[in-house]
């Protein structure tokens, strides 16, 4: 009796989980399906779930413009790679040493400094973008890749510091002390002994920074306008501006845009809890 009740409950739980999983994943599957459908099937009523002809036309349209040559979307993807890549490198270069210093040294009001650093990351982007917009207009950074790189670096630095501080904390300071007893300077001890141990953590942190910059939309849409500079998120959003919307193309470009993120997120899955809480929660 008790055993069968437990079994029944377990089965119920599995059913519930399956239903929830289907609901959560359906939109993603629908996006992939739509990207593979011919236009008339995309707008079919009632919706076609399985019986449609597969086409890769939309994927071609993502990369090749209708007149041949490179499409605007593919330019925006390239811009995204550059902006996200460079800002991630900069945030890592600025953030990792700072994280090490915060971890190792007794500093004045260290806790306050760290809290201040994290709270800059929580500022509403629509609010920050107003003065940034005016600032950039003054110095000619509006509609430039450099402008985006700077602001993305600024919002990834707090994350990098918090995330990396956790990783540095895990490396015993005694390693450096021992190296210094052997006559190395502090800097040499950091470079030769601690830094190599931090490489996996740096890689994970950089991947998160890359994802944040890659997905960012608010700054991108307000600070850039021309096709040559635009990153992918505003470019994809721009696809729905006209009178008719090519949803197949929207779906295909969304898939192309999301795929690298999912791959990268899978690579850093062990650090996901720390990553999505901006390095604040570690388990």
């Amino acid at each position: 009796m008790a055993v069968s009740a437990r079994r029944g409950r377990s089965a119920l739980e599995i059913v519930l989980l399956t239903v929830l999983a289907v609901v959560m994943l359906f939109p993603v599957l629908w996006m992939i399906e739509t990207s593979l459908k011919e236009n008339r099937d995309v707008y079919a009523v009632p919706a076609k779930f399985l019986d449609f002809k597969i086409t890769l036309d939309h994927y071609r349209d993502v990369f090749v413009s209708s007149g041949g040559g490179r499409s605007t979307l593919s330019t925006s993807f390239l811009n995204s790679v550059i902006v996200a890549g460079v800002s991630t490198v900069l945030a890592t270069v600025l953030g990792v040493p700072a994280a090490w210093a915060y971890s190792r040294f007794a500093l004045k009001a260290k806790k306050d400094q760290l809290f201040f650093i994290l709270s800059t990351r929580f500022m509403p982007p629509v609010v920050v973008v107003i003065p940034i917009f005016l600032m950039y207009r003054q110095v000619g950074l509006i509609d430039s890749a450099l402008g985006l790189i700077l602001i993305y670096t600024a919002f990834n630095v707090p994350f990098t510091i918090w995330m990396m501080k956790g990783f540095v904390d895990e490396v015993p300071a005694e390693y450096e002390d021992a190296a210094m007893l052997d006559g190395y300077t502090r800097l040499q001890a950091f470079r030769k002994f601690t830094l190599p141990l931090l490489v996996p953590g740096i890689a994970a942190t950089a991947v998160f920074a890359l994802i944040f910059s890659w997905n960012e939309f608010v700054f991108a849409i307000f600070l850039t306008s021309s096709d040559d500079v635009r990153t992918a998120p505003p470019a994809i959003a721009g696809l729905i501006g006209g009178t008719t919307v090519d949803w197949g193309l929207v779906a295909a470009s969304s898939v192309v845009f999301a795929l690298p993120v999912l791959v990268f997120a899978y690579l850093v899955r062990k650090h996901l809890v720390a990553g999505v809480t901006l390095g604040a929660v570690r388990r």
Partner: protein
Amino acid sequence: MPPARGRSPRLTDRRLAVLFIAPALLLLLAMSVFPLLWALYLSFTDYSATRGGPAAFVWFGNYTAILTSAQVHQRALTTLIYVVGAVGLQTVLGFTIAYLISRRTRGRGLLTTLFLVPMMLSPVVVGLFWRFMLDAQFGVVNSLLGSLGLEPVEWLTRQRTALISLIVVDTWQWTPFIMLIALAGLTAVPRYLYEAASIDRASEWFRFRTITLPLVWPLLLIAVLFRAIEAFRLFDLVYILTSGGPGVSTETLSFHVYKVAFLGFNTGTASAYGILMVLVVIVLTQLYLRYLNKLKED
């Protein structure tokens, strides 16, 4: 052969710390603090980004106008409904999923990975895609409702349903976040506690209430606060999904700031709005950091 001992290591340490921290802090000062101070200054003026020319000081004029405006109260209410609704739903659903997963012995990793997908997508992709799925004519959601014999719903084009749609989409995207954090808490509950409880023949509900919940609660609270801050600052999803409409039914404070700043070009007023929003965020962040600190010390 190690190099010779350096001079006065304490001085070097301090210099090194400054050298390593200063560049990062300078960047934050230039890109976060300075802009906010500028916004603070602008909030006391009637500056307009398009009109140009010198700005006249209006002191607290912008602030009193905002705080006494019925329009703004309406937006604040919309924001509150959205934040409470979305974060509440996410918490319940996310915790439920985490609890169900934590009770499975096999396939945990795969299940977790699958559930996490929505969270990793850009809000742009999420917003666009739901807009397509919720379309009143050819959207798949109405198509599914139709096959169940239900009437189609104008998800994004009716005042009342638009806000619900926004909450649903946000819940879809961020339930995995709560799930992830809750799961981290649940798997950290030591097994022997449950074993001891089952020797005492404690009921399942009793175990849940006295062991699971108290141990997971602090972490869950962090996740909820984090989500509340994020939901409060949310802009992109509203922009893509509904653009604040129909009417002003989904116009959150974030979206309203955008309209005042970039469509009305009342930069001074928008800055005052912004400063008020920043104050709210600072309060929430302080709360968040305080709980985080407590969690770390335990």
